């Protein structure tokens, strides 16, 4: 599974980076995105949903978020 670290990046870079990686992902492939703000979590989730992907969000002990995106 491909993983990208978007922590500390301001808007809209987490979304831009996620989209770039999603475009390269084949059907059924998974992408893990690490973000550290609620805004990035929501924006990346919305992008993934709009692209027809499944999104699972998990909050870490460090108050960061791991988004697991599965391309359909």
């Amino acid at each position, binding site marked *: 599974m491909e*993983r*990208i670290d978007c922590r500390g*990046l*301001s808007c809209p870079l987490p979304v831009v*980076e996620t*989209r770039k990686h999603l475009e390269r992902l084949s059907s059924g492939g998974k992408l893990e995105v*690490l973000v550290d703000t609620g805004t990035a979590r*929501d924006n990346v989730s919305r*992008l993934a949903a709009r692209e027809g992907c499944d999104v699972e969000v998990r909050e870490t002990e460090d108050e960061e978020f791991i988004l697991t995106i599965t391309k359909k």
Partner: protein
Amino acid sequence: MERVNRFFQSRWGIILVGLCIGALASTLQKLGNPKNMGICVACFERDIAGSLGLHRAAPVQYIRPEIIGFVFGAMIAALIFGEYRARAGSAPVIRFMLGFFAMVGALVFLGCPWRALLRLAGGDGNAILALVGLACGVGIGVLFIKRGYNLGRSQKGSPVAGAVLPLIMLGLLLLLIVKPVLSTGAPFFSTEGPGSQHANYLVALGIAVVIGFIAQRTRFCTMGAIRDVILMRDFHLMSGVVALLAGAFIMNLIYGQAHWGFAGQPVAHTNQLLNFGGMLLAGLSFALAGGCPGRQLFLSGEGDGDAAVFVLGMIVGAAFAHNFGTAGTPYPNNPANWGWGPAAVLVGLVFCVVIGLTMRSTATAKA
């Protein structure tokens, strides 16, 4: 809590928030704020700069509680929903200068994106080309973002570090309430002009706290609305911005505050080239900094020190704009008499283009 959060993130959530912001802004005008200026982040930060004596333009000096309330409201929302994160360190000097030039551009037009919408909702046709300029500026910013523009990562900090701008706002609120009498005359409060026109400060503060709260939850951003449409064909934020326009327009009709035309509009001028150019610079600066002036205040309330630096840059930019005569005036037709505004816009555009072309880094690392 989760249901509330989901609603704020939904399309209907942002539309309702946009309607509320527009209606409340129009109501602030009814309650005493200047015409077509129920909320103007640029104008109100400029008034704060004037009240502190950073510039001495007597008609625009007042400690605007709306700015304070925006930061407080966003901070309250961030704390309640567990989103307060102290962070900073992403190219602070560049963000300061982006804030500076965003303000210079906005004051050439005489308003930020929020006021451009409110001016349009009040019938001021001069806002049309300003909004076109804003969209073009954001569009140029999107081109840079597509080429890999990046100001670098912020770092986590101590919770206190994230509270510096809210604490500054607390200090401003105390100055507004106490109104100390100093031999220097500071803090300055306008006795005539836009700075003297304001709603009751407690009402304005309360309304602004509500707006700050709901805007933080929905990530409301006037620049982001345009950017997301251009960059990703995402109309989520744009639906909120259109709702703001509609909310203000409807309330202006109800209050009898809409007056259609170009000439004689309140705190405005009819030089369309400068309306366009000023907001072109502002739009590009906001796009490169990642948020409109309202959004920068909301982010500051969440603990974002980089957004706070942008806000401080805007306040200093306002002081510069009035001290050096670059802020908009009823521009005469002869370009020879336009003053320093156009030159300042050109310098700002050069700065932004250089930053847009040169600030690049590998955005993400494999985790």
